[in-house]
């Protein structure tokens, strides 16, 4: 088995928070504002509630098997063959997710900052760093995430505060958007936007117990949901829902709106650091888990020889979409709306099976 090491609460919390929140820098706000209009900011809160319910179910599953991580539970409950098939499904989808995330990042960077640089030139150095991160392993990734956690969230707060002069909260009206029914429906579909929380169940053995898992899960979901909501309020208040739904990266546009005298303006490039760092951490983490999944399926003890071929696969996955419209209309919808079929449905199904078959893991202490 791969030696992943152990890390503390803050490290795990940081990496999960960054993985959940990175979407805010790209097309997610645009899509949400397009679907829900002025109700986008609480539409995401409805998704958050759905995600919290899912996490509770996930916690119940993990509690039933306190000694095992999610992949091991798949094998215990469904048997070796189906279990490995499920793990492989996770692994394949994670590679696809890493590739599409990378492509989305590349597209945004190309549009806003590096219009003349070919996408492959943007992707290659990015993937080199991802490969190095994966080489070092999970412990290195979470520690880097912890160090940059403060920078990422600090920068988000700074953008929101510095853009205060641009806000007009009248733009949040009509408060019900395109109607409550549509808001609730879209909110529930987009629970998938928070489904990365399932990754926490995969790395659970590196955490300090089930209670820490529970605490990190709920806290990161709440932090992610609130961050999404606040950022959406700011984007709507600054650009109104019609224009807000046009911006490829609402947060980048918000940072571009910062203006304090002729000297202090157009500072959006500074926030590029945060964009890039959070994206690298997110893709590295997802990439590493996909490596982990593949290694588990085929009982490979060392993940390092797999890095290069998997980097190549990620690179290929990033080139699946033909153009940016395809990324937005097809692939991001798959990732943020329909990925729940894999990340939410499978664990819930496994929980149901475990309950039906009466399967339980070995209890260690009454604490969990």
């Amino acid at each position: 088995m791969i030696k992943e090491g152990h890390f503390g609460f803050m490290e795990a919390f940081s990496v999960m928070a960054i993985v959940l929140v990175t979407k805010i820098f790209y097309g997610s706000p645009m899509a949400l504002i397009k679907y829900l209009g002025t109700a986008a900011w609480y539409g995401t809160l409805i998704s958050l509630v759905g995600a919290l319910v899912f996490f509770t179910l996930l916690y119940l599953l993990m509690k039933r098997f306190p000694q095992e991580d999610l992949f091991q539970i798949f094998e215990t409950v469904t048997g070796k063959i189906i279990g490995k098939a499920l793990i492989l499904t996770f692994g394949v989808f994670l590679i696809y997710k890493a590739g599409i995330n990378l492509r989305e990042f590349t597209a945004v960077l190309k549009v806003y900052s590096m219009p003349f640089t070919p996408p492959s030139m943007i992707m290659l150095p990015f993937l080199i760093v991802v490969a190095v991160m994966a080489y070092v392993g999970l412990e290195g990734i979470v520690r880097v995430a912890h160090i940059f956690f403060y920078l990422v969230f600090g920068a988000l707060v700074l953008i929101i505060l510095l853009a205060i002069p641009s806000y007009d909260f009248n733009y949040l009206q009509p408060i019900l958007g395109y109607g409550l029914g549509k808001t609730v429906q879209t909110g529930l579909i987009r629970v998938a936007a928070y489904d990365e929380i399932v990754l926490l169940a995969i790395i659970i053995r590196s955490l300090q117990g089930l209670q820490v898992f529970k605490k990190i899960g709920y806290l990161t979901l709440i932090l992610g949901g609130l961050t999404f909501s606040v950022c959406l309020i700011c984007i709507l208040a600054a650009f109104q829902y019609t224009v807000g739904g046009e911006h490829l990266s609402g947060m980048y546009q918000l940072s571009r709106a910062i203006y304090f005298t002729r000297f202090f303006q157009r500072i959006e490039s500074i926030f590029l650091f945060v964009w890039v760092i959070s994206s690298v951490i997110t893709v590295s983490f997802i990439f590493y888990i996909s490596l982990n999944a593949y290694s588990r399926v085929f009982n490979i003890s060392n993940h390092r020889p797999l890095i290069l071929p998997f980097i190549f696969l990620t690179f290929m996955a990033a080139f699946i979409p033909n153009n940016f419209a395809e990324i937005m209309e097809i692939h991001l919808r798959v990732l943020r709306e329909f990925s729940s079929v894999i990340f939410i449905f499978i664990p819930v199904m496994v929980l149901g099976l475990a309950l039906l078959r009466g399967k339980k893991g070995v209890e260690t202490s009454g604490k969990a």
Partner: protein
Amino acid sequence: MKQTQNQNQDQDKKQEKKKISLLQKAIGFITYKKTKNPPSFTLPESNEESGQGQDNAEQQDGSAKSDKETDKQSSDSKSRRKATKKPLSPSALKSSKSESDEVKQDFDSNKKILEQQFHLPVNKDLIIRDFSIGNKQPGFIAYLDGMADKVIINDYILRPLFNETNNEMSKNQRLGPLEDIILTNDTKSLKKVSTTVTEILKGNTALYIDGLDHFITCESIGYDKRGIEPPKTEGIVKGPQEGFSENLRTNISLIRRIVRNKDLITEFHEIGEKSNTTCAIVYLDGVVNPAVVKEVQRRLKNVKTDFLVSSGMLEQLIEDNPYSIVPTILSTERPDRTASHLIEGRAVIIVDGSPFSMIVPVSMHALMHSPEDAALKWQYATSLRFIRFVAVLAAAMLPALYIALTTFHREMIPTDLLIAIAKAKENVPFPTLVEILLMELGFELIREAGLRVPGIIGNTLGIIGALILGEAAVSANIVSPILIIIVAVTGLSSFAIPNYNLAFGVRITRFYFIGAGTLLGFYGISLALVAYVLMLVNLKSFGVPFISIISPRTKGSKDIIIKWPIWMQESRPDYLNSPDRRRQPKITRQWAEQDPNDA
């Protein structure tokens, strides 16, 4: 007639010879001629095994031998080398050593052994002085000239020895133990030749009297050494002005003068097969984590090298990550700083002959602290630390950020400034990268040259050189004036980094970021930064994560970036896992709790 005929014949022959020699000379100009150079010196192959000297001689003569023979010889020597590389079993090694290492009970044999060990009579440093005491009992003393104090030898070893023996003779009594006769403060009875040799090498005097089965070594170290001077690289305004010197004993005494604690322990280790350098491990028992001491001992014991002259060399041999650009051992030439780290629960390594101590384990923030911080009020120290952190960022990234800004993100530069930069760059034919590299190279040259030039001229050269070079470069339109400011600020920032090794690392890192910024602007710098931080989080210093406190998160300390008031610093750093975590009680300023009128 015959004579004249002969003379004519000789003249003809001479003319012919002249003609031939002229012809030969002329042909010589256009034909290849093998020059007969005198045989040059070639360094013979080193003979790793004993008895290979003959082979070497043969090899030297062997230029005339056929290729086959030399091939055979080389294959022989290879096979022999292979054979000797087979390790001896530890017991066999021990027994072979112990047999030859024992002191004999015979005057001549012991004298001969010492003469052989020190290569007498070729070597002129070892003085062996023979004498006879009592009933013509022969003896000798041996010491290294220049390393031992002759006054001690004369007055406290020889004089008492002769006086006592004469007295005993007159009384017709047996000679008492030599340790009671010799007046030096430290004597050792050594039964092994190797340890006796080591003692002589340290500057002590070995004494042998016929019939004894051991040497007696008397402390007589007396070589010249530098006095205590202010530190050269860690000068401060407020605080002690003493720095370490090259003498190990003096250095330890400087620490002991500050930490007057019976639990302060000093252990000695010999490192260097040829140099036999003494290294000391100093730690405060009960405060330092025993695992750290054990690890330091393990590493020092397992350093196998022939020569060790400075702490810098040892640092490279014992550090966790030799490929890391960032130092993971703190070097300081200040006894007060060393003492404060000892009290915090770290171990200290001092190398004889080096005016630096090495402190382990350390984390990143310890490298950013200046010795002056301890002496300053917390507000001043904290603000200085912020400046230092800014300095590290500027020294590593400012030129890269400038390149990225002017090449990729021009929209960020305010219009007026952008016009000024564009105007200044108008006549410069080089791209910004070349400008930066030229100026950085010039700056590094001035810095390096300033170090080599002796005395005060060195400093002057640095300032004048930088001024003239900068001014001339701008006048010649090689670089733009704004770039001079960038390079100057970067240079100043690198000088503000309190640790010499870290400053070196940051200077090299600067070029890494310049490369990233040139290729991909802020995007490149961000990626480079992530990779750099990844390297930092994976570093360890004697088992302690290098950026501990931040990641992995440990209990907060009150002396990392912000230096909290000294009375709040109640516990030692958590990451050191000291057995004695608390430094002072919760209420340190107990007088503040008292009623002044009650006193």
